């Protein structure tokens, strides 16, 4: 059984209350950090742990913390990004629903490390139940003396607020989140300056994902070195994966990084294989923004070695044969799923969620969506496929925030790996409306490996 850090006590009844959480060793990290460590020690521990941002980009959290500017007389802020709205990702919601104190404990320790006296949890607007859960948990923690003035007699003050967002995907981008938190329209800011220099209200700010902050708790409890022993290479620790799609047992799993993709999909400990005895066609490894991969490349690297669930292994081969860890939204597609339809669906999402600030993303996402819609509904032309590649290329890298890239990558990668399916949609417009292209050759080179493994 794999080691669990975040979800260890997830099935304990009443773990969402302070008492049970305390019984299971909760708030030890706060006591340890505030009583025995200095803020710099905490940052050092997180650096040693090698924890990488769990929100998508995978930037080392300790490094991010050490970049925070510390001018005299200016407040610093910690903001927790709980605006999880990537299609395929639902790990933060699960964590906040079932074990809210893990996040609050992490927030206290992280705020202490950064010297923030006020911290915010920016929760996506649709997650109203989670907002109530968090507010209740904060009230509990405050009553117990873990928040407010002079926490545990250490002289450290912290106020923690929950801020509901308006439910826009773009507000998950850190600078748009800060704009929204300030009460403005959630448009991403132009960087530089980065939030570490001028963030919330122009003050130095760190924005971290829910899972990154919750992961600080085990790091402080057991020490950064202990945490770094888990995982593989530069991908240390454990990661929550939201598995969805045609799996026997979809759900949120905590895996140790370095688990092979094949084991994750087919092992009974994890997803238990593809539902209804069908075969795997494709996977999206890290939420809708990352490139989609056909089954053969999902399970194996281009050189035939097994692909692992880690930042490095998933991105092995660049965009030609690789993908990204992203936020851990693992979506599996079986042989009856239509890649064109799925690409259109993703594209529709990005079209709807583009903030409309910079031109390539505003206009390009709508254009791609319309072309993909045409392809899916049998009005496409052969030239549309190259047009999509070209439009995706013109969006990618030319936008203010990563939403443009996130919109372009799924389209570009789907065409890169599934071009014959797109062509089939053009050649067989009527047939493509009610039948699917099927598995074709997308799983071929490794079909044997799948059977021998299980």
């Amino acid at each position: 059984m794999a080691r669990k850090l975040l979800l260890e006590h997830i099935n304990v009844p009443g773990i969402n209350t302070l008492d049970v959480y305390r019984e299971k060793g909760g708030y030890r990290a706060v006591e340890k950090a505030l009583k025995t460590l200095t803020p710099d020690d905490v940052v050092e521990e997180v650096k040693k742990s090698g924890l990488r941002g769990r929100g998508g980009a995978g930037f080392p959290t300790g490094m991010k913390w050490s970049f925070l500017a510390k001018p005299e007389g200016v407040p610093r802020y910690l903001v927790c990004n709980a605006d999880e709205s990537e299609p395929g990702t639902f790990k933060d919601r699960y964590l906040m629903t079932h074990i809210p104190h893990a996040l609050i404990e992490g927030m206290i320790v992280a705020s202490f490390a950064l010297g923030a006296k006020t911290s915010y949890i920016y929760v996506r607007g649709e997650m109203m139940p989670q907002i109530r859960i968090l507010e209740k948990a904060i009230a509990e923690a405050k009553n117990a003396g873990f928040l407010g003035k002079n926490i545990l007699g250490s002289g450290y003050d912290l106020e923690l607020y929950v801020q509901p967002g308006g439910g826009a995907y773009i507000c998950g981008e850190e600078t748009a989140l800060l704009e929204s938190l300030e009460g403005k329209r959630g448009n991403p800011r132009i960087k530089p300056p980065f939030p570490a220099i001028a963030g919330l209200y122009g003050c130095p700010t760190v924005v971290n994902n829910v899972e990154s902050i919750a992961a600080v708790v085990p790091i402080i409890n057991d020490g950064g070195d202990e945490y770094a022993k888990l995982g593989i290479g530069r991908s240390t620790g454990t990661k929550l994966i939201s598995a969805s799609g045609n799996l026997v047992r979809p759900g949120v799993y905590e895996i140790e990084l370095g688990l092979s993709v094949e084991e994750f999909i087919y092992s009974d400990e994890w997803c238990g294989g593809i539902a209804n005895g069908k075969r795997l066609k494709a996977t999206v490894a890290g939420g809708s923004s990352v490139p989609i991969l056909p089954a053969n490349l999902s399970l194996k690297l281009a050189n035939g070695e097994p692909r692992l669930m880690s930042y490095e292994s998933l991105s092995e081969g660049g965009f030609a044969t690789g993908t990204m860890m992203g936020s851990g939204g693992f979506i599996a597609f079986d042989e009856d799923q239509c890649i064109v339809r799925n690409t259109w669906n993703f594209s529709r999402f990005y079209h709807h969620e583009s903030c409309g600030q910079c031109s390539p993303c505003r206009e390009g996402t709508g254009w791609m969506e319309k072309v993909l819609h045409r392809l899916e509904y049998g009005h496409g032309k052969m030239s549309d496929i190259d047009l999509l590649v070209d439009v995706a290329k013109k969006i990618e890298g030319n936008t203010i925030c990563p939403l443009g890239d996130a919109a372009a990558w799924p389209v570009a990668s789907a065409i890169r790996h599934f071009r014959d399916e797109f062509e089939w949609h053009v050649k067989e417009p009527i047939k493509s409306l009610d039948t699917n292209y099927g598995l074709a050759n997308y799983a071929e080179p490794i079909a044997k490996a799948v059977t021998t493994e299980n």
Partner: protein
Amino acid sequence: MSDKVKVTIDGITVEVAPGTSILNAARQIGGDIVPPAMCYYSKLEGSGGKCRTCIVKVSKGSEKDPRPMPKLVASCRTTVMDGMEVMNITSPEVIEARSGVVEMLLINHPLDCPVCDQAGECDLQNLGYEHGLQKTRYEFERRTFERIDIGDKIQLHMNRCILCYRCVFTADQITNKRVHGILNRGDHSEISTYIQTAVDNDFSGNMIDVCPVGALTDKTFRFRNRVWFTKPIDAHRDCPTCSGKVTLWYKGEDVLRVTARKDIYGEVEEFICNTCRFDKKKTADWVIEHPTVISDTSVIASNHYDTLKPLPVIQPNLKLQQANKVELEKTTKF
């Protein structure tokens, strides 16, 4: 440390003050290497970075850190570093990306230049000529909006808008109260007022001047004339609210419209008030200075009103000179 930093743009080195943006450094050099800018407006704080037409490649970050920047950057919002090397028109990557941006800007633009009042002084039109394709690859219906009147002097054609946010910044920074902004998001975002309140402010007319396209038009000038048939003359008056320095656009002896004076990048020199802009349309209201200097490349200059000499065929021919008398006189009138 010296107080100037050296930056090389397309092989031309210039020394600028630290904190200058690449775009402004390029403007100090001038000429063809200046990246086009649709949303950046030097007079408006915080503008820029949105339209992405000014993107350039930074092939060398600085003297200290010579690594190139990984992506193309918006030159209007990237500050220069000492020893930075920038490629604009010498980089095929930039040219391609820019034509991509222009294409994106045009796919939802109605291209109704023949009936648009901005035609002839439209930044998007110029940009389209320089970087656009001959033909559109966009085969879908363009997004459309209803025209709305914001106030009695300004009409908003949202179809033509490229969402540069200039008018929003203008209202924010030079008027006391902004009543319009961006509603919705993505490609259905629109400039609008909240429940169609009128934009009513002494300086609201400047929104028309800063608009790079024909989205905000002067209702007192709408459909009165094509801009290239009118002749710009710099003039001033003693105005209690603004500097009173304007450009009058004449057709014959009538002032058809009044705008602020614009520099070679199409940016106004000084914002003017609505009284000057909308209400003072008689020559008697103004002290005439001289014909406005218009760039040779502008379609407005094609009238050659200040340099027009009789064409070579006309010069030796008295009969032809007689026939063109009215036209020639008109050009020498001012």
